[in-house]
């Protein structure tokens, strides 16, 4: 098992009132899967992704990565996990606007402490794949929303993560750009990466191997497309 969330609970205090966002939630993910999480706004999709990447800590429950318990309290371990194993794409991009596209893409590698010729070549390839090669020396702040999302995607992939978390990756994009992003994600799936997407996009929901519907902090329904998953498994075996 690549990732397993066991009995996760999370609540927030809003105006002194405790509001439960995730309630005794169990979740699992395998290599080579695209998992989409859908549900109404405020149902806990983003919180679930934030708990997986360690940006927020659950009130109770455990996370297992490769069947090993993740020490959620340890900043060094969680930072290392975020840097090396998980790539993240946010709805708001979270790029450093006054730095170049290439510099943004290389940032996770710099934090990892490894930027050699191969990594720079990989960054160039990612920029070519995402159609941003000509913008590599441009400041990220000057790009359009779709271009920024593609930079965020290239940045998420620079350290070759096993899991890619994408929070509404196509929310701000036009149809053509969304399709480009989908194609890249499908390629990643074929490379054996696990992709977890919080989305409302019907096109993305169709492509997913599993679709979880969330409501009131719980996973209500799981829609598994066996054919797609089996095809992928066969292709990897």
């Amino acid at each position, binding site marked *: 098992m690549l990732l397993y969330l066991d009995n996760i609970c999370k609540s927030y205090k809003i105006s002194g009132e405790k509001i439960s966002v995730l309630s005794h939630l169990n979740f699992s993910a395998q290599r080579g899967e695209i998992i989409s999480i859908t549900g109404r706004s405020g149902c806990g999709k983003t*919180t679930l992704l934030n708990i997986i990447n360690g940006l927020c800590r659950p009130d109770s429950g455990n996370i297992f990565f490769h069947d090993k318990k993740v020490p959620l309290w340890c*900043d060094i371990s969680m930072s290392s996990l975020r*840097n090396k194993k998980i790539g*993240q794409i946010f709805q708001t991009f979270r790029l450093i606007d006054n730095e170049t596209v290439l510099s943004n893409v290389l940032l996770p590698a*710099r934090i990892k402490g490894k930027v050699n010729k191969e990594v720079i070549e990989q960054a160039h390839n990612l920029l070519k794949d995402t159609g941003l090669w000509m913008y590599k020396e441009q400041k990220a702040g000057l790009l359009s929303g779709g271009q920024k999302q593609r930079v965020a995607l290239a940045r998420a992939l620079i350290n070759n993560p096993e899991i890619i978390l994408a929070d509404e990756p196509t929310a701000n994009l036009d149809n053509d750009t969304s399709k480009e992003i989908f194609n890249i994600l499908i390629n990643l799936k074929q490379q054996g990466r696990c992709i977890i997407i919080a989305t409302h996009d019907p096109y993305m929901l169709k492509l997913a191997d599993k679709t979880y519907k969330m409501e009131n902090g719980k996973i209500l329904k799981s829609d598994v497309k066996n054919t797609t998953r089996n095809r992928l498994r066969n292709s990897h075996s």
Partner: protein
Amino acid sequence: MIQKIYLILKELAGNKFISFIVFSVITISVIITISFLVISSNFNSYIKHNFATSIPPDEILVKQGKSKGFFLFSENSGRPIDEEALKKIKSLKGVEKINPVIAVAVPTSATISFFTFNYRSDLICAGADYKFVEKNLTTPEIRQAWKRGDYEKGIPVLVPGALIDSYNNGLAAANDLPEIVPEKIAGLKFKITFGLSSLSYLPGYFEKQAIIAGYTEKINLTGLIIPMKAAQEINGHFGKENRYIFAYIKVKDHKWTESVKKQIQNLKLSAETGTSLSPQIIVLQRSVNYFITVMIGLVITLASVAVALCSATAVWDRIEYYRILRILGSTKIFIAFTILLKNALSGFAAFWIGFSVIKKISIYIMNSLSLSIPGFKFQWILQKEHLFAVAIVSISLPVISSLPAIMRMFSSKLDHS
């Protein structure tokens, strides 16, 4: 590692405007603070040299007893300080240590050579113990020579501040000769002839190479100070008795000073303590020092407020950058380290530049302006402890100021965009 250094350098280059303000505030504060410290040191030095004896509060200067003779030249001088007198003083209650200064009881002269010109002058010499003058000896070689009595490279000689002052203000001023800077005097070589002066000579007189080991404010004598062993050997060579010019008595603490002074006076010896500053001068000195301390405090307080606000703003201004770094896998420790290192380096650079600027300005003032206050010469006087304290405050101020912002930043949640 190179990538970590790259990220540190990026942090150093970040937020240039606020960093420049922090840097400027610290630089200006350092310049003002050091100016006040130098002015304070010059003022205290002026008071010390013109209004006070140099005897510390827990020391007593013992001299030969006062003469009771009726004539100008009398055999009946006061009680001398000899071995017996020293033994008695040592046994007095409250006495911790005795540092006697022995007289070289033979005619002595010194020859200083400038190229082909030789200048010869009579002088007096006295011997002091190594431990008493240890801090005034400038080099390890000279300290060893003084301690061991090894004079192969020349007899080490200390020049009392009083002698330099009397030369600068007397002989040099009257004859248009260059003044001597006490701090630069060490290392000069000349010759001393023991047993020979312009007035008399003793059979077996001899000449010795001498090297100046530094200057001292401890011994108030218009003569040269040589090692105690050398003085004893010279007296022995000419068959003279060892007599002490004076002795510095260190008491257990200043409360004992008056009691020990009275006991010494009862031994028919002269005893002086450092009470020659008039109460008005003491009040003036305290008032000036208090004013300077308040001004330094004010400068540090204003600088602290400015730097604290700027440092907090600097961290706050880059909070999204730090948040992105954390999301992408930087640890809290690394981010805190880069911020603190940036602030520490900025503080140190500001201190160094401020210090260099004020030193240059002071030297320019010393060289260009002739301050014609009688008995006063503006000097670059800055104690190492003060300089160290200014450096520590300059470095720690931006570092400590940024801590609350760092802690606040780390307590904020990463999942809030």
